[in-house]
């Protein structure tokens, strides 16, 4: 809850007494108490608007009767609300009747039919015999963008799409056009819609005026089978509604009902339109065996027996730790658990890891440090009630788009302050009254975080004596921050001190604080130090100020958190119990030098995505036997000895754990396609082929086993209600993590004058999204970004092809000039296989230095 407390008022609805917080509108109270009131333009995520005029109710306060529009009228103490009286019905009916005059009654071919608020309201008000003739508008539908169809004849001008686009998404791509009889909805100058393609407008539309063109079937959505599941793209963990017809996923919708998922019916382009990855001709159809460089189809029995034989032989010949496995940030918890169980218990190997942990083992340590310092972080559902949100090096609309929706909700309804620290001038439009932008010099993240802490101590923004008495090494922290003076920091970051001071003041005050950290910090080579600095910052307010603080480790994919929770790493067993097994050295070095004889990669593509692709390629080339399970033929799969076709998230059951530790159900909507199998089944069958079948093999049994192995997961299954796992109370003393004196950001080398920034594109993540047609349609090509001044110096213009070259490799890519990307840096999204931007890193940590030149 926000630190601002709201008064609780007593009201009566149709004679029933209830209590509500001050400021709630009458309609919301009715909805929460299951009292039906006709309405078309209300949405609890949006500001009151009162366009449709069909929600009139009668209120009595102090004996004074009023007829009010319930969607805008706030409750008052002692208010009596009466709905559906003879009088209100008369008014509401008259307004709805007018809306129906123009509405084409083409319900049988309408996407909303059966789930249509207009139908429902017509029925509720029993408007069966209209007095007027229907006057259709008969305008052609507008299909000028690849995804969202406008069929304005059905539009009732409720303004929900316009408002959702503005208030939820901050995109403001839609608005009203003209007036009177010719009023409509459209884009500026009727140009093809070019927006973030979140599709919120489709969800909120109370008629079929806006339609999802990616849908595999037209009309009668009520006939589709609905399955609630968890999205498989980023780590925010939105609940999606998979709609199926005759065993095929037709489309994905959001569910705006109360308490469904953490996203309250918000989705992004990937989650909503990325279903093209499910039914796809490019999927691997059968198990493939590499015979002398050619892949030949084999049966599942043949494949599994080959693997089992090879596993057994390798254990016998080279010992269990010569077998290694990479768990997947996209597999369910249960699948990851089984993978570690197969390796640890059945085979006896501790050589387990996941790509994020190989690169940044400090992420889990950071999370545990937070717990030790008393920061267990609130459920992410409370983000929208935050008083202040610090977005640290994350481009929210691309990285956690739905997180951005929650933050915007906070700025509209709870006065949330926004503090954005990023090397790029990332776009984030909201209604925040306090919106501090800290656009710092690329790579100076550490100085920003450290200076914020120093300002809080030096300016007395926190109670230093209280912090000092609680944390033993407070003086050591003060000492370590001494070099971050205003002048020094400005030199390092390019930020004037008053900006940082303003941010520190907003952060240190009595507030509910949330810190969202982006994955970009890993690319600076100082990820651990930056997280330490942020930990210290949060610890300072946790002990030296009031309110609360929540911070989550940066996680990239849908189950990046869960794969670690399930012990897919050498240090920890499931539930972060210390592992006693052999820790080994660097995972891929182990493969490269021949220590690892057998490698099992479950649904990951390190060649395409890992930050040291050269090392990975050499490692995979050296490993004598490589198994890859995946849905698509990735660069990694091409190097395998055996490929097993696994199933997508729509075809399997289990749970994902999101970045804020919500364990959420993944539910199968369709049967596994072709001969593919969920990794769950593959692992169960593999254990059988080894002659050591798991004693338990059903999902509930495995979940029970996980609850025993990882007690923090107790009570989180089956994950239908988005429950966050909570760490046990730490018995360790809180302490600051002191960074060694830093060697500050290196000066750019003359021959490579730019620094490279690369992260996920707004419409793509991982390797799958490139197979979703809709996402490719809206995000067809890789476009690098550069500041216009830099472009002028290089003699390049938007649309030119350029070569971006580092000391180790080069890529060719189209370029666009924009002031979002600061001078001295070039930004390249990392999701196109034809632009293997991860090759530019020559194996070193830290920012990648590149040069840019016009191609050809």
């Amino acid at each position, binding site marked *: 809850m926000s630190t601002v407390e709201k008064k609780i008022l007593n009201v009566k609805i149709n004679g029933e007494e209830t209590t509500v917080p001050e400021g709630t509108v009458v309609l919301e109270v009715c909805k929460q108490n299951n009292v039906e009131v006709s309405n078309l333009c209300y949405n609890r995520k949006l500001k009151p608007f009162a366009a449709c005029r069909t929600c009139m109710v009668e209120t009595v306060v102090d004996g004074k009767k009023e007829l009010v529009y319930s969607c805008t009228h706030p409750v008052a103490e002692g208010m009596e609300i009466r709905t559906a009286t003879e009088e209100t019905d008369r008014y509401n009916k008259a307004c709805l009747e007018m809306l129906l005059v123009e509405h084409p009654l083409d319900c049988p071919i309408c996407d909303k039919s059966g789930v249509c608020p207009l139908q429902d309201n017509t029925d509720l008000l029993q408007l069966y015999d209209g007095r007027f003739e229907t006057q259709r508008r008969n305008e052609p539908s507008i299909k000028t963008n690849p995804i969202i169809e406008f069929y304005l004849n059905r539009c009732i001008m409720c303004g929900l799409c316009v408002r959702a686009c503005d208030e939820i998404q901050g995109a*403001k791509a839609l608005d009203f056009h003209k007036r009177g009889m010719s009023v409509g909805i459209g*884009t500026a100058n009727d140009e093809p819609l070019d927006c973030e393609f979140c599709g919120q407008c489709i969800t909120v539309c109370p008629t079929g005026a806006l339609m999802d063109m990616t849908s595999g079937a037209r009309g009668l959505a009520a006939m589709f089978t609905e399955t609630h599941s968890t999205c498989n793209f980023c780590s925010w963990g939105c609940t999606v509604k998979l709609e199926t017809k005759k065993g095929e996923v037709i489309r994905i919708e959001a569910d705006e009902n109360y308490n469904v998922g953490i996203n309250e019916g918000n989705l992004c382009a990937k989650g909503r339109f990325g279903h093209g990855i499910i039914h796809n001709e490019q999927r691997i159809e059968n198990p493939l065996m590499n015979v002398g460089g050619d892949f030949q189809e084999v049966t599942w029995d043949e494949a599994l027996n080959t693997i089992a034989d090879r596993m057994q032989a390798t254990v016998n010949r080279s010992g269990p730790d010569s077998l290694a496995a990479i768990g997947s940030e996209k597999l369910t918890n249960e699948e990851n658990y089984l993978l570690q169980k197969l390796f640890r218990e059945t085979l006896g190997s501790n050589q387990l890891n996941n790509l994020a942990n190989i690169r940044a083992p400090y992420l889990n340590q950071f999370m545990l440090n937070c717990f030790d310092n008393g920061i267990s972080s609130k459920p992410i559902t409370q983000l929208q009630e935050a008083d202040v949100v610090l977005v640290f090096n994350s481009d929210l609309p691309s990285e956690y788009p739905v997180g951005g929706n929650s933050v915007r909700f906070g700025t509209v309804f709870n006065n949330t302050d926004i503090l954005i620290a990023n090397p790029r001038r990332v776009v984030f439009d909201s209604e925040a009254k306090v919106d501090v932008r800290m656009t710092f010099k690329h790579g100076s993240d550490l100085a920003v975080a450290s200076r914020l802490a120093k300002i809080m101590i030096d300016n007395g923004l926190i109670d230093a004596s209280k912090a000092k008495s609680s944390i033993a090494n407070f003086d050591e922290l003060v000492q370590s921050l001494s070099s971050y003076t205003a002048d020094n920091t400005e030199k390092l970051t390019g930020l004037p001190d008053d900006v940082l001071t303003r941010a520190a003041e907003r952060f240190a005050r009595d507030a509910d604080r949330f810190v969202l950290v982006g994955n970009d910090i890993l690319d600076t080579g100082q990820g651990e130090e930056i997280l330490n600095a942020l930990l210290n910052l949060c610890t300072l307010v946790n002990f030296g100020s009031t309110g609360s603080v929540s911070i989550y480790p940066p996680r990239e994919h849908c189950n990046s958190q869960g794969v670690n929770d399930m012990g897919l790493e050498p240090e920890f067993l499931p539930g972060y119990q210390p592992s006693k097994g052999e820790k080994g050295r660097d995972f891929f070095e182990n493969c490269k030098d021949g220590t690892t004889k057998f490698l099992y990669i479950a649904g990951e593509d390190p060649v395409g995505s890992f930050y040291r692709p050269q090392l990975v390629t050499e490692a995979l080339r050296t490993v004598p036997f490589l198994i890859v399970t995946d849905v698509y033929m990735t660069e990694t799969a091409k190097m395998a000895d055996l490929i097993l076709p696994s199933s997508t998230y729509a075809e399997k059951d289990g749970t994902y754990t999101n970045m804020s530790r919500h364990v959420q159900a993944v539910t199968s909507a369709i049967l596994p396609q072709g001969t593919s199998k969920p990794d769950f089944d593959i692992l169960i069958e593999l254990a059988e082929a080894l002659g050591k079948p798991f004693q338990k093999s059903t999902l509930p049994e495995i979940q029970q086993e996980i609850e025993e192995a990882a007690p923090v997961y107790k009570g989180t299954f089956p994950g239908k209600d988005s429950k966050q796992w909570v760490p046990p109370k730490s018995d360790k003393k809180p302490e600051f993590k002191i960074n060694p004196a830093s060697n500050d950001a290196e000066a750019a080398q003359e021959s490579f004058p730019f620094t490279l920034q690369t992260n996920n594109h707004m419409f793509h993540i991982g390797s799958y999204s490139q197979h979703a047609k809709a996402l490719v349609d809206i995000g067809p090509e890789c476009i690098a970004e550069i500041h216009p001044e830099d472009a002028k110096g290089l003699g390049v213009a938007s649309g030119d092809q350029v070569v971006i070259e580092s000391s180790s490799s080069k890529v060719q890519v189209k370029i666009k000039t924009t002031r979002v990307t600061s001078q001295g840096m070039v930004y390249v999204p990392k999701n196109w296989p034809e632009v293997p931007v991860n090759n530019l890193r020559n194996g070193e940590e830290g920012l990648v230095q590149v040069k840019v030149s016009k191609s050809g």
Partner: protein
Amino acid sequence: MQEYKFTEEQEKEISRILAKYPVKTSALLPLLTLVQRADRVVSPEAMVAISKKLDVSPAYVQSVMSFYTMYHTEKVGKYMILFCINISCQLNGCDKLLEHTARKLNIKVGETTSDEKFTLHREECLAACTEAPMMRVNDTYYGNLTEQRIDQILESLD
């Protein structure tokens, strides 16, 4: 889309307009008027330029612009003739006069002459019933119209 450039004078005028309002968005109508008067049309490029000046979305500028009938998305003539067709003018024969004017200019109502000199429009009410029938040419009101008076007025405009 080409970038729209305000002239130096317009920039000065815009600064003067912006200074009048505590909230920038309020200056939207004055800026649209400024552009309409200078260009005789509000082009998409100009709307984008205005949206940047006021920190609003181009879609919003379009929504406001398209709400009002006196902003035009197609270039109008040097002289914009608005003919009042409301009740007082109608009782005094504005329909015939409008027809006469159209014939004289050799265009239909709603059109612009090929030399881009005149555009002829109907207008719901110009609030000058005492002078009915009447028309407005740019910022000037002409009342008590007859066919001869209209001919004279049109000839007097160059």
